[in-house]
């Protein structure tokens, strides 16, 4: 049951993320990027056979998750946060310079 729930959550997040990523609004598409990054993190968590029945670090008998993907996720979260901050900073600069948040109007390099 838990697997199906997690799979559905990940796929839903991916769908929302891709949809937002492809929007014309720069801020929405930055949000889409953040959502996709988190969907991937959940996917990595699921890759460690995460069933949500026991915490990862308890060394007791029974179902345990693989710890390595969780280490990967920690790294990916940090990098993703940095990337999101940089993207937001760039969107800010772009909106100041082009006076718009519509990506179609950011076309100084297209002739």
């Amino acid at each position, binding site marked *: 049951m838990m697997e199906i729930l997690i799979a559905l959550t990940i796929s839903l997040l991916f769908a929302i993320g891709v949809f937002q*990523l492809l929007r014309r609004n720069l801020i929405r*598409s930055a949000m889409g990027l953040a959502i996709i990054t988190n969907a991937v993190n959940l*996917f990595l968590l699921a890759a460690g056979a995460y069933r949500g029945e026991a915490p990862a670090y308890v060394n007791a008998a029974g179902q345990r998750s693989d710890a390595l*993907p969780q280490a990967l996720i920690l790294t*990916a979260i940090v990098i993703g946060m940095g*990337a999101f901050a940089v*993207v937001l900073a760039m969107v800010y*600069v772009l909106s100041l310079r082009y006076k718009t948040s519509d990506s179609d109007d950011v076309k100084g390099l297209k*002739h």
Partner: protein
Amino acid sequence: MNEVLALLPVMVPLTAAVVAVALRRRHRVQSAWSFGAMLTSLVFAALLLADVWGEGRPLVFQLGGWPAPFGISLVGDLLSALMVVMCQLVLAGGFLYALGCRDQCAQYPMFYPLFLLLATGLTGAMLTGDLFNLFVFAELLVFSGAALTAMSDDRFGAEAAYKYFYISLVASVALLLACGSLYVSYGTLNIADLARRIAADPSPPLVLPAMAFLMAFFMVKGAVMPFHFWQPDFHTAAPTPVHAVLSSVVVKLGIYGFLRMTTLLFPAQADVIRTVLVIAGAVGVWFGGLGAVGTYDAKRMLAYSTLGQLGFILVGIGWGTPLALAAAIVYAFNHSLLKAAMLMLAGSVASRAPVKTAAFDLITGVGKKMPLAGALFLLGGMGLAGIPPLNGFIGKLMLFQRGVDAQAWLPLAAIGLAGIITLVYVARAFQRIWWAPMPEGAKTKPYGDRLVAPTILIGLSLALGLWAEPLLQLAYATVAWLGAPDQYVRAVLGG
């Protein structure tokens, strides 16, 4: 003790970047320190290549002393050592250009540290033996590359950086998905361990998606035809020393990835990858060539030209025979040197133009005052087009030879005809910049960027064209290694 040579080309620029940040208030000291670090790192890369080639075995450094597959290994085999030497060579050239360039951005206190981080990311991505570590280094590369672009003098720098950063982040998501898929299937992310396990059991359902995600990642990195759209915009606005490096060696990360994928990770499924690469390459050759002919800006022209030239390399990898692979490696090496030099020349012409830009309208006739740059540009253009005295000829000859041998007439005709387009756009640029008279009333600036770096790079390419034997032998030896992935696997995992 030699193992540490696999670590030093990554470690030296990383440490030097940290120190360079501390030196940020003293610009001259900082630039001298950073350039020294870059040269040191180049020396270590050359030592690594010499050692690996001389001893005939890969060097593996296990980080933190953890044995593979539990720790992260840095693997210097012949392919990665060759690629690292190539990258460090061009990076050092870019550094030399930055030292003598009049861009405002090269004076910023964070320029050199970021450049060193770019070097770290690129070198690390090519030396690492771990997929997740590849992700980390690729992110380092993207962050520093985007920051360097955003600080450009060009007012569109932020737009270019945004496009580059955004598409690269999506590519990184693809790489993470590939990591997850492979981890689920095989429980390891060590490339050597993965290679062994995939060869033993290719049945898990997530192997093909992982392959597709990895391909998407490397295609974005290499600006391969359907994923190329960030690249021309990016090169129009980035500072000259940065895009000279990014257009020549950073795209080679994609080439490196495809070589690894077809020979080490997925040799059994390589036919699918190869077919895609031949098609993408042949289309890219045409697309890049025609795009370069039709564009309005010298730097943009060279960016499109990169698409076309990468097409030749991809066709070489796609054909996949020893001769074609050797041709791809020689071609990649040559393209790195030449394209970096050509972009630097375009940048130095732009620095002499009345308004700092490489748009053809504004640099018409600017070259009248720079005969040396004209001669170098013509030499470089001949190299790109594959005319004999330069090294470009050899790679192309080997590639066409393979096409004739295998009677692959259709792709051969496609890339052969498209090769002629190279001559068209190079001649057009040369004519606009060096032959056409200046418009009335326009004045060039008396000083521009120094030409030391492009002279060295073109000279190197000329030398490798006249005395090609060492590079050819190296390429053939590399291909022989690629044909025996067991050696790589055993070197990393032991036993």
